[in-house]
């Protein structure tokens, strides 16, 4: 232990020169050459073992059986996907080098890489894409049915070109959707020989930069770098151990004692605690602004929330400044819509309603008072926000009862219409079309109880024949309609901290890091 401590001290002395200790770059740094928490790739230790602590649990490591977005943290390493998202949430090529919608929107054609081999030796080609998509659409128990629903059939045009015939009017979100598990490709050999085993033992079934050599279900996965990966600018560490550590304090302790090299910390108080440790020099940390907003979803068909005055009052009574500067100690920013301002479909001019306590009070009085129940998932980072809302809404005469419901039940209960309101981390999908379906028109159904205010806007915005700019304009209109009708209340976008040893580099550049579920394929340890 003492030797390790001495070595760590030495590392501070030497590496400290390369990397500023107070690493608080907010947002992803694009500057890849030295400076900030990124370091020159020539200094990376290619033989390193990096131990990652994540709060995301995993149950199935088969892309078609994944039940939640957090499992991508593991599957991103094992499987390549057709596309990927860059740090600013733009779709970029991966296994597909380019893609194009037919002029009439009837199909999407993807050009594929021709130099990719699965880790079990099977080659990657258009047939593989067809096999995987058809499996995702038809396999019993597939979790990809909804995501792949826009695809009518898959046509192999040549070994490296595949055409997806689309259901009319759908499919604009496919290129972005392919950046997640819906676009992950599994070896046809593995599918033919041992498809049922993949969820617990994926082995060499992917073409990704890492091969899982040991899977302890629900606990941790040990990955080793695969030989001859097609992309040389990734998989810097020889071994990755990704471990589910549910407890925030355990993750912090793990990094402090060297049992973990890097760990993700979220939530207002834990982030502050982590930053206090960074300030004290106990650990290093990268503070990264998240995309996901914490929002108040309301069911306009229930109780006092059916009164438009009450919903309007909520919008006027939420004090975002107090939540951002107080509850989050400035480690957050106010949110007004699903996506942050720099995203292509966001409306940079959409402002939150001005705080107006008196007007809100008057509205509540007009409605004859109001009593609502706000639910939040037990132990979630949304819970503190719900507590703050209870006080803020109470100040204008809205009596709030808080309800804590386990993760596995809360969303389903909300969807079934059993809850008045829910404070939730509204994780935006890669494409706003899927986000809108999931949270607004279907699923959480923020539009429930508002009649037809959105009209044909969602369909128009999801039209694959439209350009990105045209779609963006439609979405901006939608966000505005939602705000004007008080269909929901976006509150805050928080920042998370990746605490790490001083040798870990590249955290801000990890793909998906701003979603809170990063791909660790680019993480590196300097020598």
């Amino acid at each position, binding site marked *: 232990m003492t030797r390790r401590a001495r070595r760590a001290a030495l590392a501070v002395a030497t590496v400290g020169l390369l990397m500023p200790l107070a690493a608080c770059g907010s947002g992803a740094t694009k500057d890849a050459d030295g400076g900030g928490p990124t370091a020159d790739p020539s200094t990376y230790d290619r033989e390193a073992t990096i131990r990652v602590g994540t709060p995301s649990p995993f149950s199935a490591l088969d892309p078609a059986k994944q039940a939640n977005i957090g499992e991508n943290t593991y599957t991103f390493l094992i499987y390549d996907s057709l596309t990927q998202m860059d740090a600013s949430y733009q779709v970029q090529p991966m296994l597909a080098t380019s893609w194009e919608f037919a002029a009439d929107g009837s199909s999407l054609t993807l050009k594929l890489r021709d130099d990719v081999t699965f880790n079990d030796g099977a080659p990657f080609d258009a047939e593989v894409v067809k096999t995987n998509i058809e499996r995702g659409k038809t396999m019993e128990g597939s979790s990809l049915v909804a995501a792949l629903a826009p695809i009518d059939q898959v046509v192999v045009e040549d070994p490296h070109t595949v055409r997806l015939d689309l259901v009319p009017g759908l499919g604009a979100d496919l290129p972005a959707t392919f950046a997640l598990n819906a676009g992950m490709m599994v070896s046809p050999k593995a599918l033919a020989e041992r498809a049922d085993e993949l969820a617990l033992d994926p082995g060499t079934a992917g073409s990704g930069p890492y091969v899982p050599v040991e899977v302890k279900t629900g606990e941790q996965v040990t990955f080793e770098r695969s030989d001859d990966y097609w992309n040389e600018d990734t998989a810097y560490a020889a071994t990755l151990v990704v471990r589910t550590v549910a407890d925030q304090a355990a993750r912090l302790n793990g990094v402090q004692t060297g049992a973990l090299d890097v760990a993700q910390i979220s939530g207002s108080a834990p982030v502050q605690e982590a930053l206090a440790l960074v300030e004290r020099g106990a650990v290093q940390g990268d503070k990264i602004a998240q995309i996901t907003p914490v929002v108040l979803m309301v069911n306009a068909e229930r109780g006092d929330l059916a009164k438009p005055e009450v919903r309007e009052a909520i919008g006027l009574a939420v004090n975002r400044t107090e939540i951002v500067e107080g*509850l989050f100690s400035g480690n957050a920013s106010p949110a007004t819509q699903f996506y942050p301002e720099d995203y292509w479909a966001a409306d940079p001019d959409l402002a939150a309603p001005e705080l107006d306590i008196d007007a809100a009070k008057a509205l509540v009085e007009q409605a004859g008072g109001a009593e609502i129940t706000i639910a939040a998932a037990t132990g979630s980072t949304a819970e*503190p926000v719900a507590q703050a809302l209870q006080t803020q809404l109470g100040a204008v005469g809205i009596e709030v009862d808080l309800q804590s419901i386990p993760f596995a039940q809360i969303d389903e209960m909300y969807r079934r219409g059993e809850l008045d309101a829910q404070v939730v981390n509204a994780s935006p999908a890669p494409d706003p079309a899927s986000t809108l379906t999931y949270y607004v028109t279907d699923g959480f159904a923020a539009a429930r109880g508002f009649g037809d205010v959105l009209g044909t806007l969602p369909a128009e915005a999801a039209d694959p024949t439209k350009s990105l700019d045209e779609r963006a304009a439609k979405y901006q209109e939608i966000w505005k309609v939602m705000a004007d009708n008080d269909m929901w209340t976006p509150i805050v976008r928080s920042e998370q901290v990746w605490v790490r040893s001083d040798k870990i580099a590249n955290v801000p550049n990890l793909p998906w890091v701003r979603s809170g579920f990063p791909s660790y394929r680019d993480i590196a340890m300097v020598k």
Partner: protein
Amino acid sequence: MSQTSAPSRPRSGRLGRASAVARREPLATFALLYLILIVLGAVLAPLLATHDPDAQQLMQRFQPWSGEHWFGTDDYGRDVFSRLVYGSRVTLQAALVAVGVSVLIGVPAGLLAGFRRGFLDAALSRVFDGLMSIPGLILALTIVAVLGPGLTKAMTAVGLIFAPQFFRVTRAATHEVMGETYIESSIAIGCAPARVVLRHVLPNVVPAILVQVSVALGVAVSAEASLSFLGLGVEAPTASWGSMLSTAAQTMTLAPNLVWLPGLLIFTVVLSFTLLGEGIRRSLAATGRKAVDE
């Protein structure tokens, strides 16, 4: 507590007896006074508290001790002193619920089983074995999952878990006592069973039960903290010592004072319950079974 065996220096009146006990058991007496103080604090919470315990001031989080906030403020800018005062109500009630449930279930059943033996004993033992064989927190988890969150429900579960302990200790002690010749002879000469149990058996098993009560009260107060740690405690924003402790544990670096205060209170109160229980046990032994003590 038979009248015939008075303390070594006979005194008249309850007060005199009490002061004798106090002199013999200074620690227990001190513990009792401390607990009375805490209970008074809980009863008089609205008078003592300087602030509304749930009133947030988000711009005043993690404030140090000051004239305005005697013990500082917490992660929502709430007054820690007021939360501790009001939290004592929740915590003490929770402990009483758990121990009350377990005593009410465990002790009568234990007496009955120990006294009657035979089929009733076997049947009761099996029932409590079954209850006892479910690891406690897993049962609490399941019950809370079914009935929904709520401290009283969780503490009832804790009480259920404690009950077999009272049952077994009572039953075992009753068995021991039943083996004594004087019990056998009282039954032989035709004393009514109820009279035998109340007059001869119960007084002799009380020390064992009291030790259990003291231990159980301690465990109940700290069980409240453990339940809070697992997210099964009192619902936000209501304060309990356990919830304050487990929340503060998240920010040990940032605000260590938030950890020490509820921690200290839990520690001292549980300790006091234990010392008091021990004191009572010794006093009972001294008065009731004087011959043995000397």
